[in-house]
């Protein structure tokens, strides 16, 4: 494969440039809504990147990934509720709680595979949803308002929309880089090997269960970070953050963007959330369009956006050669 300008590279460069310049445009045009929307997109893209690690590269079909959005968010919300505003306390707790939950859930769920795994991760996520709905001290069903965003050292101020956007952007790129490093390491090779043929990996002496579990925990922890950001973004956390349809949304982002590709989840998140925004502008009943659209993507465009860009690249090369 030549390292020339393939459509995929062009698309990634354009996306990175657009995301970097977006706050300037928002400020100049006074369109603050755009900035808020895209901050949200970046945060959910981070969650999708983490899901892609287990779903795309690891072949683990978790249908409960949004649970870490809730756990990370509640870590921030609960600590803020108790008067602890320091991000240096809130964020590590968010990450640690997500990691711990992922460890327990993963240890149980990874004993199974295939459709069992889908249903079990879903069921455990719903369990967490009901448990948090039942805790009256932290708002129960109604959720918890967060009056002060996570405090870091000055001049970093997360209440500043522009600064917060760039924090999210930086963390998203860091996550994409981290996942890229992981999947290209020996560890990542093993995980991808397990996706293709677990029996064979076990036959050559690799303890696949442990590899999958570690991968599952990394993904959960990363998504917990996304949860902490999301709570800061909305200044609010409720069990609805981790409702199972949100897990479905994350899967849609990963598949729409293209599984097992570095920037795929970002493309998927942008595509899905912008599409939602556009459709809901057209009709109040926009999901009646989105639903069948998903069905069509599954049936006819399985490779997602990344696959589309890839096939454009191959078409170009074939034209040259």
């Amino acid at each position, binding site marked *: 494969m030549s390292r020339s300008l393939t459509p995929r590279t062009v698309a990634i460069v354009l996306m990175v440039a657009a995301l970097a310049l977006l706050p300037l445009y928002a400020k100049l045009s006074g369109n603050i809504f755009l900035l808020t929307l895209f901050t949200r997109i970046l945060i959910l893209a981070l969650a999708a990147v983490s899901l892609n690690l287990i779903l795309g590269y690891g072949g683990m079909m978790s249908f409960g990934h949004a649970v870490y959005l809730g756990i990370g968010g509640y870590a921030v919300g609960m600590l803020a509720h108790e008067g602890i505003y320091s991000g240096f306390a809130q964020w590590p707790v968010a990450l640690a709680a997500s990691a711990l939950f992922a460890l327990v859930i993963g240890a149980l769920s990874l004993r*199974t595979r295939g459709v069992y795994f889908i249903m079990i991760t879903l069921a455990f996520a719903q*369990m967490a949803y009901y*448990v948090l709905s039942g805790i009256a001290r932290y708002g129960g069903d109604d959720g918890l308002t967060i009056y002060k965003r996570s405090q870091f050292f000055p001049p970093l101020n997360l209440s500043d929309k522009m600064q917060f956007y760039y924090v999210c952007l930086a963390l998203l790129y860091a996550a994409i880089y981290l996942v890229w490093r992981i999947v290209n390491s020996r560890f990542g090779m093993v995980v991808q090997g397990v996706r293709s043929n677990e029996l064979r990996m076990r036959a050559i002496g690799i303890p696949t269960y442990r590899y999958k579990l570690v991968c599952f925990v990394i993904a959960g922890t990363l998504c917990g970070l996304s949860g902490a950001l999301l709570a800061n973004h909305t200044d609010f956390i409720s069990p609805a953050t981790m409702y199972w349809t949100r897990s479905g949304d994350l899967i849609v982002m990963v598949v729409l963007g293209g599984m097992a590709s570095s920037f795929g989840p970002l493309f998927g998140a942008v595509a899905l959330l912008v599409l939602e925004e556009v459709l809901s502008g057209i009709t109040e009943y926009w999901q009646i369009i989105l639903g069948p659209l998903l069905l069509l993507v599954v049936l006819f465009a399985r490779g997602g956006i990344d696959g589309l860009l890839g096939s454009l690249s191959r078409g170009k090369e074939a034209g040259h050669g």
Partner: protein
Amino acid sequence: MLLIIEQCLNGLQFGLLLFLLAAGLTLVFGIMDLVNLAHGSLYMLGAYFAATFAAFTGSFVLGALLALAATLVVGMVLEVIAMRRLYGRDHLDHVLATFGLILFFNELVRLVWGPEGLSLPLPPWLLTSVPILPGISYSAYRLSMILVTLAVAGFLYYLVMRTRIGMLIRAGASNREMVGALGVNIKLLYTLVFGIGAALAGLAGLMQAPILTVQIGMGENILILAFVVTVIGGIGSIRGALVAALMVGFIDTLGRAYFPDLLRMVLSGAAAATAGPALSSMLIYLLMAVVLVVKPAGLFPASGK
């Protein structure tokens, strides 16, 4: 004592209701290898159809029968339009496509029936309570739910194990090509199986309709319980679904009723009051976790899967 018997009957009734849903899920998975998240939507449609037809005809029973037929038809049409194209594909494709269908059905219901819920009033003859033991009476409607579900479970067993159609269904589950080669219209058979699964979900929905409000998203919470049931019972096994559904039904109902009281004996009043509701909703998931640790493929793993 009185209350315990009533709660046990409630547990039985809820368990059997879960069985109706889980049986449809597990039937479709066992035979077509299809994961259908939209099963809860069919449950919801059953309830909406029943409320509408009952109001239209003025008769509860007639409305229920029409609703049952309508969900059967919706299920079969859905199979022909969408589900058929998903057979033999990745489970992730099933999850995504049927997730799309959930969004579609929820929005469709909102468009047709509006965002407010409906209610399905019971006829007077079902509103009474009947004596079941000397000195103990139980709601006639819940009792009739138990009887109807038991009859359906029996019919399902007879259909799958004792009839020619059932024989073809079982044969189609083990080898699709072979049954097709022997001249059986396997496509039609699958459409029928999906329709039956849909009708079972619809029946569960329309029976729950008078007890709960008929509302958008009503199918989703119970769908997850049905998943728990199928996972515990072993996916693809109807017998497993029945056993697991009864276990989940009893544990959930009795847990919610008595677990907070039990907790109060151990913890202080305030702590028990806080933790009680949260922990009792966890019980069935703990049951699932325990079953998975002991038997990762469920209590009755379907053979050959």
